[in-house]
């Protein structure tokens, strides 16, 4: 549906982002926070989907790329920015610098993606998973050792540059790039690499290059998401980008259906809303006539447990994801 006119859809999405950014302060801050989280998670999930879902490279270290982007962009806005611009800089300058910081974060993350992707290439599924996990941990350890970036305590006081415009814009751009890349003749190379590497090579596809490109592009957008995250939570530390974080993103991709961008977007949204929903539920007391109101606080404690049960049930019952349906195979109608 969006493939027949992708550029139009992108422009519409960007327009929505601009509007959202403008009316942001009229919306309840809690909703703004939730929407921001959703946008960041969509960017993360769609970028991971390129690596895991389409190219079939099982990466468990995506949070590492996020960390690289977060630290790089934070360093630029916190340390370099104030040196270049006076403290009372006009909004436009702040925005431009922020854009630059985000893109720089993405690029450094992309470099990390190149670094991680290249050696991982010869590895099969489960080995690749462990190696990418390892890279994610190594990145966390590296940041823990850089005292200039806060060491184990991390960075505090990151300027609050993130707003709905950036977040929705990033999500839209990521979706656009991943979808248009994959749904082209060029993009069939990714899927072929995933399906059968030997056959793909025999058909002239440089599978190594496909896999590296998937890592680099996926890492780039994860880096941008990281930058947005840092300027949203205003504080980052190495522990926030660990294996657990990577798994959260992986779950979004799995629930959405690997290789199904629409499904992944829905999954990212729902999985961001779920803890909020549960938290609200846990804070409620159900009034019982004539008795003490029933506290649902135990739901909050059970949340991680429910999460893992969800994962296991999903794999046992519907491993293709919750949101994969028999899509009509759309032959690319040249318009």
């Amino acid at each position, binding site marked *: 549906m969006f493939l027949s006119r992708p550029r139009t859809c992108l422009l519409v999405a960007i327009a929505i982002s601009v509007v959202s950014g403008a009316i942001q302060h009229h919306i309840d801050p809690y909703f703004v926070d939730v929407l921001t989280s959703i946008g960041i998670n969509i960017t993360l999930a769609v970028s991971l989907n390129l690596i895991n879902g389409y190219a079939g490279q099982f990466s468990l270290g995506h949070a590492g790329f996020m960390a690289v982007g977060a630290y790089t962009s934070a360093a630029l806005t916190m340390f370099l920015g104030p040196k270049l611009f006076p403290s009372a800089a006009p909004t436009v300058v702040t925005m431009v610098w922020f854009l630059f910081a985000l893109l720089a974060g993405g690029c450094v993350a992309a470099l990390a993606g190149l670094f991680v992707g290249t050696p991982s290439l010869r590895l099969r599924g489960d080995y690749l998973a462990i190696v990418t996990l390892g890279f994610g941990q190594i990145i966390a350890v590296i940041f823990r050792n850089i005292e200039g970036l806060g060491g184990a305590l991390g960075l505090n006081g990151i300027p609050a540059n993130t707003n709905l415009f950036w977040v929705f814009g990033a999500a839209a751009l990521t979706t656009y790039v991943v979808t248009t890349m994959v749904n082209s003749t060029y993009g069939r190379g990714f899927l072929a690499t995933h399906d059968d590497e030997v056959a793909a090579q025999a*058909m002239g596809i440089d599978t190594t290059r496909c896999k590296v490109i998937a890592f680099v592009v996926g890492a780039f957008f994860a880096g941008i998401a990281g930058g947005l995250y840092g300027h949203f939570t205003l504080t980052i530390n190495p522990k926030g980008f660990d294996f657990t974080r990577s798994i959260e993103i992986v779950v979004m991709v799995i629930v959405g259906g690997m290789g199904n961008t629409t499904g992944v977007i829905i999954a990212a949204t729902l999985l961001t809303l779920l803890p909020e929903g549960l938290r609200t539920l846990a804070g409620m007391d159900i009034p019982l006539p004539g008795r003490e109101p029933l506290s649902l606080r135990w739901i909050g404690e059970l949340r991680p447990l429910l999460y893992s049960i969800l994962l296991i049930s999903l794999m046992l019952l519907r491993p293709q994801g919750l949101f994969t349906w028999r899509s009509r195979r759309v032959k690319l109608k040249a318009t």
Partner: protein
Amino acid sequence: MAIQAREVESDMSDALLELDSVTIGFGGLTAVSDLQLAVAPEQLVGVIGPNGAGKTTVFNLITGVYQPTSGAIRFNGQPTAGLKSYQLAKLGIARTFQNIRLFESMSVFDNVRAAIQIHRSHGVRDALWRGRGFREGERAVETQVMELLDVFNLAGFADAGAKSLPYGNQRRLEIARALATKPKLLLLDEPAAGMNPTEKLELMKTIQFIKEKFRIAVVLVEHDMRVVMGICERIAVLDYGVKIAEGAPDEIRCNPKVIEAYLGDEHVAC
């Protein structure tokens, strides 16, 4: 209707493909030993022999999946040593596989489209920008893919999942896909396996047809002797990795070494 095979002289000097004393061993086992083989442009060569004789290994050597331990392989005069499979595919070598290796998550159309991409007219930038160049490129791709599917009577299945096709059609799709790479040399690994006699007859006609229409050389590994004898111009016989005979179908049919190693007495009509 008998299908006549034309005998063609094989000339080493303008061979399209040359295997020159090629040997490969795995651990303690020598799979192919000192193999000399030449294929001329637009020639149809058969490679036969018992199971384990090394026939698929030869294909893997030609397509760069394995590197020979000694000897040299030349394609169009150029040595293929060190070149990877996808580079050789770009040079013009295509193949099908003994155990069908289609891209199972994709449609019939996309399987062929994935292979055409090595000659695509647009790249990443066009895919992202989606401008005029991209649309025209995709249109051209669509036309080419449908033409190819038409040759194999698969056009009606274009949107079906590759996995959902009946076995015979899957084999034909694999050949169509290989042809999408616009090869000069096509290697077919047991294309008739699992087919009934009618389908085999169809296959023989198709192979001859594509050889002439696309002007390619074909090397065929096959166990069905009617297919091999029916269309091949030259046949090489392998046994335990060694070439024990080579020649025109009639010579091979009556060759005592070949009969003993592989064909058995019922085929003797000399």
